[in-house]
C-alpha cells in the first residue's frame, strides 16, 4: 500500500514494485481514512511519503496494537537499520505487519529508496536544465507546440511535460525531444 501526494512518484514506485513481483493493493494521495483502508486491504507493507501530515495516525496504529486486528508493527530488525535509515533519508517511511517475510520487506524498501532518490534527482534535473541554453530551447519549442496544438497556457504546457517526465521516469529534456519528434513524424505522414 502506497501513500504519496505526488501521483507521478507513486506511479513510478508502483511500476517498479510490480516489476519485482510485488502486488500494490492501493495507492492513496492523502492519508485521510488511512486506518479504514489499512484494515480493509490488510497490507504487509505500507510505504508513506515521510512528509505526509497524517503519518502520525499510522504511527499510532503501529503503537496501539490492541486497537487493530492486524497490527502494523514497525520494522525493528537490527540488521535492517541501515536500510531504514537510507529509506528515511530518501524521504520514505515504512510500516510492516508483524508476520511479514523480512527478505521481502527488504526488497520492497530497496526499491522504494531507489525510486524516491531517482524522483528527487529528476526534480533536481528539472531545475538545472534551465541553465543550459540548448536544452532550454528544446523544452521551449516543445512547450510552444503543446500550447498551440492544445490551446493551453505556458504554465500548463510545462506542467504536462513535467508530469510526463515524472511518470515515465525520463528527464524533462528527453520528454521534450519525444514531443518534437512525434510531432515531426505526424507531419511527415
Amino acid at each position, binding site marked *: 500500500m502506497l501513500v504519496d501526494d505526488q501521483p507521478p512518484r507513486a506511479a513510478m514506485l508502483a511500476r517498479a514494485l510490480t516489476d519485482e513481483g510485488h502486488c500494490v493493493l492501493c495507492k492513496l494521495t492523502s492519508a485521510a481514512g488511512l486506518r479504514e483502508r489499512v484494515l480493509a486491504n490488510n497490507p504487509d507493507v505500507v510505504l508513506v511519503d515521510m512528509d505526509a501530515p497524517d*503519518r502520525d495516525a499510522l504511527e499510532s496504529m503501529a503503537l496501539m496494537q490492541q486497537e487493530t486486528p492486524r497490527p502494523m508493527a514497525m520494522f525493528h530488525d537490527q540488521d535492517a537499520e541501515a536500510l531504514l535509515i537510507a529509506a528515511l533519508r530518501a524521504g520514505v517511511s515504512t510500516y510492516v505487519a508483524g508476520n511479514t517475510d523480512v527478505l521481502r520487506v527488504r526488497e520492497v524498501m530497496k526499491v522504494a529508496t531507489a525510486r524516491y532518490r531517482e524522483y528527487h534527482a529528476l526534480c533536481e534535473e528539472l531545475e538545472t536544465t534551465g541553465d543550459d541554453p540548448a536544452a532550454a530551447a528544446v523544452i521551449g519549442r516543445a512547450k510552444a507546440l503543446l500550447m498551440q496544438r492544445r490551446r493551453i497556457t505556458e504554465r500548463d504546457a510545462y506542467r504536462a511535460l513535467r508530469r510526463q517526465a515524472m511518470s515515465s521516469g525520463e528527464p524533462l529534456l528527453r520528454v521534450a525531444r519525444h514531443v518534437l519528434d512525434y510531432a515531426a513524424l505526424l507531419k511527415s505522414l
Partner: protein
Amino acid sequence: MKRSRVRIGYMPLTDSLPLAVAREAGYFAAEGLDVDLRPEWSWASLRDRLLVGRLDAASMLAPMLLATSLGLGSINQPLTSAFSMGLNGNAVTVSPMLFHGLRALAEGPTPQDMARALNKLVAARSGAGGTPLVLAVVFPYSCHAYQLRHWLTVAGLNPDQDVKLVVLPPSQMVDHLRLGHIDGFCVGEPWNSLAALTGAGHCLLSGYQIWENAPEKVLAVTRDWAASHGEVHAALLRALHRAAVHADQHLLESLELLAHPAWLDVPAEVIRAPFTQRLAGGLTGQPYPAHHFHVFSAYQANFPWRSDARFLLGEMQRWRQCDVPRDGTVAAQCYRSDLFRQALTGLTNLPLEDDKPGQAHAAPWQMSGRPGQVELGPDRRLEAVTAEQEPGVSICHSGLA
C-alpha cells in the same frame, strides 16, 4: 569568526515561540549560531529527520523523546535533552453538541463536575446503543494524550474502552471537529483558540486545570550529537533561554511573529487570545487567566527536571505503552540537567537539585539555588472527588481559580 550551522526542526505551534524569538531578536546570532529553522508536518517525520541526521535538534514532545530512547518506534537511537521549551499550552476543546450535552448534565462548573457529566453522557450514549465519543490527541506518547487520559480517569472512564482515542495532526484538529469527524480534542495552542473563536468548538478545560504548570516540549538532540557538539549545544541552550526570557517579558509583541504565513498563518489576535482574556472556557464561558497557558522561562521552565522525566515514564507505564526500567537510568540519560547547568552558570539562578518535589503547591514556592533561590510554580494535579467528600467542599482546586 565562523558561525556554527545548526538545523532545528519544529511543529508550527505557539510553544515554538522561543525559536522564532531567538532568530528574530538575534539571540542565535549573538551566540555565533547560524540556525536554519525547519517546519515539520508530523511528529514522526520530526523524530525521523533527527534520528537520521537531517536535523541537529528538534522541539519535540517530551514523552516522544523518552519513548524513542526506549526503542519504541523507528530507529533505535537514544535521544537526550538539556532544555525544556516551556510549561503549559494545551487545552481540551469539544464540539458544540458535546458541550451542550455536558452543560445540561453538569451540576457545577468545576473540572470534576464536568467529568461527572461526561461519565453520565457516555453511559447514556452506551445505554442507547450509540457509538463511543471520538477524541483526538496529537500522538500516543504526548502530554496531550496523558492529560486527556487523566481527565477521563477522573470522570471514572476507561480511556481505552469507554471512548475512542484517535491521532490527528495539530493543524487539522479544528477542521475535523467542524466536520463532525471527532467530538473533541486535546491539543496545543493556537488550535483551541481558533476552534473557540470560529465557533467550531468550546474550550472545556485548560491543560493547567488537569496538571498545573505541566511539562510539554523539550529540545531534543541525539546522544551522539550532544557528545560531539558540546560547545554548539551549550550556545544553543543559552540562546534559547535568553529568547524564552524575552518571550515571557514581551509576550504579546513576540506572539505577533507567529502570525506570519511562514509560521502559523493564523491571525495574531487568535494566537494572543489566551493571554488577552479572549479565550472563554468551561461551562460558564469565563475567560481563562493568562497563567493557565504558556510559561516560557519563569518557574525554571527551561530546566530539564529529572522528576519530569520520571513522571512521564510513569504515565507511559500507567497506560501500558511500555515497560520502563526501574533504576532511573532512562531519566538520567535523557534529561541532562548537568549540561543545562554548565551552559547557564553565571546567567541565571540555577536549582541545586535535579528533582523537584511536586504536586503539593497551590501557590508559587521557593527552592534553594545558586547563586540565589529559584521560584517554582503551583504544581497540583486534578484529582477525582471521592464519595466521602461533599461536592463543593472538595480540597481540589476548582473552576478557573
